[in-house]
Every structure is written in structure tokens, then in C-alpha cells.
């Protein structure tokens, strides 16, 4: 799956860079995983999707 810079930025803005990097380096972070899927599928994040990701933050 390929992502645009905007899709990645949208997720990082919600999860924070530290969690995002943690996930990218191999430690599964549900909020990042779900966020990337939502961001990809809707080409950006809606307010509801942002709240969903925030609800998954550790």
C-alpha cells in the first residue's frame, strides 16, 4: 500500500511522531495502524476518524 505525504502527515498529527516512528520500526501501535488505513481509504481524515484514532491511543 502506498501513501501520500498528506495521508502520513494526517496520522502523525493525531498520534504524534514518537508513536508513529515506534510503529514504523516494528512495534505495533493500533492507533497508527488503524489511522494509516483510514487515512488511505478516505484520502485524509475526517473528524470522526480523528476521534477514532484518538480513542485508540495508548
Amino acid at each position: 500500500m502506498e501513501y501520500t505525504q498528506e495521508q502520513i502527515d494526517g496520522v502523525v498529527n493525531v498520534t504524534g511522531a514518537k508513536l508513529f516512528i515506534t510503529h514504523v520500526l516494528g512495534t505495533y501501535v493500533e492507533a497508527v495502524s488503524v489511522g494509516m488505513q483510514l487515512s488511505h481509504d478516505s484520502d485524509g481524515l475526517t473528524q470522526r476518524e480523528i476521534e477514532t484514532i484518538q480513542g485508540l491511543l495508548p
Partner: protein
Amino acid sequence: MASISGQSTSNIDNVDGFFTTQGGSGTASPSPTFTVENSVTYFNNSITITNHGSYTDPTFQVIVERNGVEIVNTVTPDTSIAWADTADVSLTRTIKVRAQEFGDFIQSAEVTSTYTKSALGFRYFRIYGSSNGTTPSTGWFGIMNFRIYSGAGQTGTQYPANLTSDSSGESSGYFVDSDYVYSSSYAAYKAFDSNLNSWSWTLSVPTAARNYNGFYFDPTIFPTVPTMSSMTFRSYSTPSAAYALFMASNTGAFSGEETLIASARINTSSNATYNFG
């Protein structure tokens, strides 16, 4: 010595103190006792050895026969012994269990039990997300594909037929049975389309009772439900649910009358397919 006059030697051991295989302790291991998980099953079954503690380093041989034809043969030291029954549904199965303790050269006498494999004659089918493998929970999950087949081994007619929307199968008698999806991007029918890259998703499902997706056969078009024997399920990766529960009902109430026909542990880090029957 494998047999005498066509009779397996292990069946005639210890007749009047005679053993066909000599050595080791010279005595047969004690007979196993066990319970059978399901007297009627749809796909899998298992036994639990209940006198495991009375042995020292035992192994158990489990043979399952259908009409005298062996369909399972496994040897294990485990207390719980499970198997997939992929043979046709008709005819009773016979379970034959023997124990052999370390140091004994002779297996125990054979202990038998039976069970029946039943076809999936239900009208409603749902998959629920679960944290414990027995009851639904709010752990979300995604269904990339869920189909039931008329034949064993995912062969024959596929139910439901491919859907292109939540209502596209209704004229053919296939109704989507869902109470929650995260958004229209993850609509319920995407569990039943032919696209293995799309899925229905219960992300953020508010209650365990709504954490399902499935389908049912319209009673007008299907006054008698088809006879089905096998099933496939493809799970979207890293669900928060640990298990998928496969429930079936004839009323659609799912208020206690439903039958748990199978379960699968699904907390894998990648998409995964699970076949039953």
C-alpha cells in the same frame, strides 16, 4: 508382529496373559479415560484425556474412523487432542484411543467413543468478534471474505453468491445480516463480494451484541435452506478481537438459541484465511 489371522496384535494383547509384543516392562500401559468435546460437530472435534496424571511421560494415539475408514490418525503427548474432520457428513465416527507410557513397549487396550458430524442446515449465519473464544465482545474485526459451501473442502455452490451492494443479493434470496460497520467504505456486503482486498469492518463498534456481520437465506426463496458442509473466512489483519465466533441460527434471534459452529483465533499481524470442513 502386526497381526494374527487378520486381527491387530494390539487388540489381542493381554488375552490370558499373552502379549504379542514383548519387552520393556512387559505389561500394557493403563487404559486412557477421556471426554469428547462434541457429540455432534460441524467441522472439528477434540478429546481431553482425563487420567493423564496417572501416567509417566505418556503418548496417546487417536484414530478416528468413518464406516471403518480411517480419517484421523495422530500420536501426541498432549492432554487435549483436536482434529479437523473434513470427511462427508453422513455416518457416525468412531474414536479409538490408546495410551503408551514411557518404558512400556505395549500400548494400552483400545478405548472407544463416537460422535456425529452434521451438515450446516441453518438459515442465519453470523461472525462475531470475541476476546475469549466463547462469547462476543467489542473487539473490532474485519471480514475480507466469508462464504459457506455445499461441498466439503470449499467446493460446490458458494453461499451467498457474490454481492455488489448490501441489497444486491435480496432478489436471489441472500440478505446481509449486519447491525454495525464503521462507515460505508467498509459496508457489510464487502465480506461477500469477490474482492479479497476489501472488507467489512466493525471498528469502534459500541456494543458486543452489534459486533457481527453475516447473512441469511430468505424463507420465501429458500423455504428449505441448502445443505452446506464447509466454510471459509478471511480476516483483516491485526483485529483487536482475539477470536472470530461463527454462530448459526434458524430464527435469527441470536438470543440464546444460536449454535456456535466454530471459532478461530484471529489476532494475527497479517490478513489470514481460515477454512473449515
